[in-house]
């Protein structure tokens, strides 16, 4: 065993931490090099970029985490985007009408998100329609309700009293840490989390073992609803307003947040899903902010979209074939070892 392998074995925690940090760091470094060499700008050019990064990070992190609540159990809920719209538009406007400021908007949206998610979960466990199909139907209904609510005005946070706190860096960090703690406990250490992982392993076995898979599913949907609502509030704080959509357009939010989720789940193999998804979201945000700098040399947002999704495709190709690459590496190592041994024996024989 080489010294390096020995070190890795002895310092597992350090190695895992390095692995989790290395990916966002690498993305930042690559974008920094590209940005600086082509536009003369840094990826993180000013405090504006840091604020943007943090606000978008918490939004992307919460949404991806919300998706993962059900996705890990084989339930692709296509209605999470519409849940976000419904929760933020109803909850946010209710809080604004009560003059509760940014914290009120966040809390009320979360509550409405929980209700919206729980209703989908309730329908799911009773109707037993495939989650993706149920999500399509729910999207149609929720979009319609959120569109009709508040005189089709959506949620407007700009200029509203007390919402500035949603762009406060300390507040954003606080919320992110709080969500990380709560979700880590829920996913990793609570009875709900243990049962969820048992169901993730094998639903039938878990059911036979006495786990109430229905209540667990309901809780997953409820948690997802709350998380996407938080994501929606921070996204609205950045874009100033949340314009309601129709025609299943809310799905685009779901699909775009699958990228950080996919990266996060890959990173989670050396940490846990919550930390992994945070690191995944950070990586994607560095990519998006880095690409945005190319606007200065004339790159259109269509081209940026093209590059962003191509990176996702390349990542997925790597992720799905990682084991094969490892196999090839192992094979090479074996061949090298065999050659070395043969050479050694030949030398001894000589």
């Amino acid at each position, binding site marked *: 065993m080489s010294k390096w392998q020995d070190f890795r074995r002895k310092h597992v925690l350090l190695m895992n931490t390095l692995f989790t940090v290395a990916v966002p760091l690498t993305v930042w470094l690559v974008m920094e090099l590209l940005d600086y060499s082509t536009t003369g700008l840094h990826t993180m050019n000013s405090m504006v970029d840091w604020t943007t990064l943090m606000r978008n990070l918490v939004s992307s992190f919460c949404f991806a985490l919300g998706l993962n609540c059900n996705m890990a159990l084989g339930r692709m809920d296509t209605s999470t985007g519409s849940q976000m719209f419904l929760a933020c538009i109803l909850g946010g406007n209710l809080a604004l009408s009560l003059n509760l400021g940014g914290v009120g908007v966040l809390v009320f949206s979360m509550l409405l998100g929980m209700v919206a998610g729980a209703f989908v979960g309730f329908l799911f466990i009773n109707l*037993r329609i495939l989650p993706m199909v149920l999500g399509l139907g729910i999207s149609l209904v929720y979009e319609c309700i959120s569109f009709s609510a508040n005189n089709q005005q959506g949620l407007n946070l700009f200029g509203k009293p007390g919402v500035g706190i949603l762009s406060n860096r300390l507040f954003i960090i606080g919320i992110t840490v709080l969500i990380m703690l709560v979700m880590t406990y829920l996913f990793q250490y609570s009875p709900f989390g243990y049962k969820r992982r048992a169901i993730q392993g094998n639903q039938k076995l878990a059911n036979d073992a006495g786990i109430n898979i229905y209540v667990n599913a309901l809780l997953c949907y409820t948690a997802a609803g709350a998380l996407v609502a938080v994501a929606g509030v921070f996204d609205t704080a950045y874009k100033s307003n949340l314009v309601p959509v129709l025609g299943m357009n809310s799905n685009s939010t779901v699909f775009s947040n699958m990228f950080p989720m996919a990266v996060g789940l890959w990173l989670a193999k050396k940490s846990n899903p919550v930390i992994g998804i945070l690191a995944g979201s950070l990586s994607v945000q560095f990519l998006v902010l880095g690409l945005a700098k190319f606007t200065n040399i004339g790159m259109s947002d*269509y081209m940026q979209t093209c590059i962003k999704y191509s990176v996702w495709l390349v990542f997925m190709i790597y992720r799905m074939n990682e084991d094969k690459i490892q196999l090839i590496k192992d094979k090479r190592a074996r061949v090298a070892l065999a050659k070395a041994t043969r050479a050694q024996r030949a030398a001894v024989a000589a």
Partner: protein
Amino acid sequence: MTATSSANTSGKELHLNWKERVDVIRSNRWFLMAFPFAMLALIILIFGGATGGNFFRVSVLKGILSQAIIIGTCATGVSFIYSNGNLDISIGAVLGMGATLGVLAYNATNITPLLILVSVGVSLGLMAFNCTMSVVCHIKTITVAIVVTQIYSAITTLLIGGAGTIDIAYETSSMLEDGGFRYIAFFGYFILCLVVYHFTRIGRELRFLGGNETCAQQTGMSSGKATYVSFLMAGLGVGLAAVFSVIDVSAVSVETGSGLGMDVMLATVLGGMSIFGGSRSNAYAGLIGALTVAALNKGLLMVGVPSAFIQGIRGVIFLALVYMNSERRDLLPSRMQF
């Protein structure tokens, strides 16, 4: 004697309450096959009554068929993909890019067959690419679809540029329309799909793979080959639909095909097909679903339902129909997509 007692026992066992009877009827394969047709007929009857018979006019029914053709063609093709357990929602973007390159080729040469050949060829190529990503690179088809939808749409926007739309000569589109190209091509494709799906070995293999992939592979069936066939059949349909969409409005725009992937999925499920395939799959579900959606849209408008509510009502009806037409499982339905 044995037979009589057995019959008696069965008689006692068959003393079911109304709910169980409904469940028995619901799980009957003939009911499952007939249900989407019955619902379509019922919707037409209800709207016929609500509009004082106006909905039964030939022009209205013809309009429903005409409006259902694009989604119906795509959905018929996509049912091949669904039947062996795959999903693809990128067909809207594929259609947009196929139509754009078809129109560009036509405008450069003025050769009408080139419009059709390029549209179909590009669609086939893009679907083959999606399939390769899935078969060779082992990425789930839904993930590939999500990613390539954005890439294809962005490329299409850059290709079209300018005013966001490219027109073709009205004479060309009207010649194709008046010559009945849409109906001939659609029904030709539909019949081809029916035959391949229900009367050939490849169709049976696709359904078998969707039902139980492991078992199918152990009997010697190739999942990769079947996936290629399904994507290419879908590509052919999407290519034809791209031509239909150009004929429809004599133009292609950056919005052509937007949101089509989800509309097609909605139609296919409404037509009685499981998006996860298997033995209950069929090739006509897409068309029935597309007709149902078109009839619903037209009917709701004709009875005066405000547009803000149409989508919500469509959602509720969709969920109700899917619930009535789906097999209730003992456990919660799930499928790994990532």
